[in-house]
């Protein structure tokens, strides 16, 4: 495990970096450029601020499907709190603001699997949903496994977190220490890096798409109504 886990982590990072680099290179290739001439009166800063709100509250999903929206929003928020809480494993010393987020992160960890189950239920129960994305359900399954193993480590089978921190910090410095002897940790760790390998790149592209959509909407309003 001393060699297997770090090797898996480094391999996952390499795949992730390759996937992102490939996408950036593809984006640099096209010779066609969209006409982004400004419309008189268009306020880019205001449009950007509105699109930040669109992204933060998932407003487009709210308009499309409110039942799904509540599950997705809670999932994203709780996942974010859990990620923030995990920063204590890779930062030394741990900043005060991360320490103060611990209760929120713990609460997020309890909420996370239930939000995922809710999302799964809504997607399966939606009779009008004729399109089944295998990838979506696969990702939901991995996230559920990660969140459940994380919750179990928090509640029932607590591994040595000092050893976890030592291992995690060593991983970033390319001098990984001994991982804790906990099959639950091994499973959690492997699933996290497996998620990194399969990470949907729409999480990086979607905010830009939302931004463009907001610019189009604001621009069209100006064009048609002058305000």
């Amino acid at each position, binding site marked *: 495990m001393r060699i297997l886990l770090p090797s898996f982590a480094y391999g996952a990072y390499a795949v992730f970096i390759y996937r992102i680099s490939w996408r950036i290179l593809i984006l640099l*290739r096209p010779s066609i450029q969209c006409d982004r001439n400004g419309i008189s009166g268009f306020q880019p800063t205001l449009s950007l601020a509105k699109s930040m709100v669109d992204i933060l509250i998932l407003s487009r999903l709210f308009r499309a499907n409110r039942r799904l929206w509540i599950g997705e929003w809670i999932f994203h928020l709780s996942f974010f709190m859990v990620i923030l809480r995990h920063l204590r494993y890779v930062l030394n010393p741990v900043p005060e603001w991360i320490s103060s987020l611990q209760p929120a992160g713990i609460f997020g960890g309890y909420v996370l699997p239930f939000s995922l189950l809710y999302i799964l239920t809504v997607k399966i129960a939606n009779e009008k949903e004729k399109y089944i*994305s295998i*990838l979506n359900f696969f990702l939901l399954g991995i996230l559920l496994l990660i969140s459940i193993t994380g919750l179990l480590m928090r509640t029932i089978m607590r591994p040595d977190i000092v050893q976890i921190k030592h291992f995690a910090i060593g991983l970033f410095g390319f001098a990984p220490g001994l991982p804790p002897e906990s099959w639950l940790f091994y499973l959690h760790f492997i699933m996290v890096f497996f998620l990194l390998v399969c990470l949907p790149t729409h999480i990086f592209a979607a905010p830009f798409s939302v931004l463009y959509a907001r610019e189009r909407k604001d621009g069209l309003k100006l064009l048609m109504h002058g305000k």
Partner: protein
Amino acid sequence: MENRDSFINCLSPQQLLELDACTQCGECLDICPVQEVTGKPAISPPEKIRILKEFIRGAEGLKARLFGPGAIDRKLLEEFTKAVYECTVCGACGQQCTVGIFTQRLWPMLRKEMVKRGFGPLGVQANLPKVIERTGNPYDKPPGERFSPWFPENVRVVERADIGYYAGCTSAYEAQPMVRGDAIVLGAIGEAFMMLPPEEEICCGFPLFITGQHDILGDLIKEACECL
């Protein structure tokens, strides 16, 4: 054009980002009018995007870079063409899209790519460029009859005015009560307006744009702008 050539040349960086942004959530299916009638997920927006991304990966991915791009199965391309052309390009999917993909501009670009590869357009759409070049409209109707059947006798068109009225081919040849109403209203409110002569008011090019036949589009638009 070979079937192994890249698909990214027909798309802008923004559109490529939008392809990546698709979360495959399927919310667009609830609003797609074609889905309502056909019930075929194979021609749904997320499926079209998913297949296109596979085509791109086939020509640009790691395997393609190491061993050269493989040719895409002809049958797959034909099915994809059919899926792209069965769409009405109403844009409802883009309005519903949870990440705001501008599908109404994406689908015509895919049609353009399929035309370049010789898989589109479908059926009589292929006649459009010749018909438009010959008659100035996609309906193959005499240019001289563009206005005369419907223009109200008591409404006057002036040489120069602040308002220019462009009737359009579909309105002038196929939706005449609508344009007749426009002219009557302009005449009734006493607003002076000008129009191009029927031989000079040519197609705006939209039928060519929407069917992916962009070859003569640039020249057509230039000619229309010069007339205006």
